[in-house]
């Protein structure tokens, strides 16, 4: 089956991905929401501070790769969400499809349960979008 899609189809899907990222950015304390491809390149990003997207993309893939290995080592199978708790906030990572990842950067005062709940509920939608997009 051909993966070739019309430009309108791709544009509407890309628009929906942007809406999802905008929605995630509206959560209290979320400062960046990004989609990173398997090579560590940022394909979509919404942010309210200056961030080095190359560094963000590369670190997302490195951290998630390490967490996935750790999960396998302890017999936990796949890593679904990785949460980094830092001095100034959190970074949450979740795999989408075909190596694409969703990364959220938050401030310390973000409500972790709120952000994680939204992330967990958003991932299945993003998976469907990417599955039809790729």
């Amino acid at each position, binding site marked *: 089956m051909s993966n070739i899609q019309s430009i309108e189809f791709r544009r*509407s*899907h890309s628009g*929906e991905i942007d*809406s*999802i990222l905008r*929605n995630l950015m509206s959560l209290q304390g979320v400062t960046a929401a990004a989609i990173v491809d398997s090579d560590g390149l940022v394909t979509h990003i919404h942010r309210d501070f200056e961030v080095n997207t190359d560094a963000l993309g590369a670190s997302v893939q490195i951290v998630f790769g390490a967490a996935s290995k750790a999960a396998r080592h302890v017999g936990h199978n796949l890593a679904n969400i990785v949460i980094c708790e830092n001095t100034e906030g959190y970074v949450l990572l979740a795999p989408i499809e075909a190596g694409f990842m969703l990364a959220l950067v938050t401030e310390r005062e973000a*409500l*972790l*349960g*709120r952000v*994680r*709940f*939204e992330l967990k*509920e958003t991932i299945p*939608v993003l998976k*469907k*979008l990417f599955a*039809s997009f790729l």
Partner: protein
Amino acid sequence: MHWFESQLLTLHQLAEAYNFSQTQKGNDILNMSEQGRQKRAAFIEAVQALVNRVIDSSGVTACAAYHDGLILAQSGKTPDTDALGALIQESIRVAQKGEAILNLGAIQQIVIVGDLNKIAMITVGPITLCVLSPKQTNLALSLSQYNG
């Protein structure tokens, strides 16, 4: 039905509406994505609004909502959000054991009363609502009508 009960009923309905939207099948991913987001926002905003209003009730010192033991919404002075999250998860786990042994049905409420304070935990859809107050507060009475 008193004020708090009616608020919980609304939350249950919103949670069910969201759950229903998640089970919808079809190829219109864009529309389903948008609808799911709207239903989820309606539920979470209602949770946040209730948490903000419960704190106006006499004797209530804090109110918070948790999902999987992690803080989702709060108002008032929650002593230690992480510790409270852990307490909720552990309490629900123990109560669920009782549910199986004693045929209680799905756990709706857990109340822990200490020498000084008490905490009521109420499950609503995927979240747990917590109301903290001094031991002597009659929560049923305090929450029977909105005092904001």
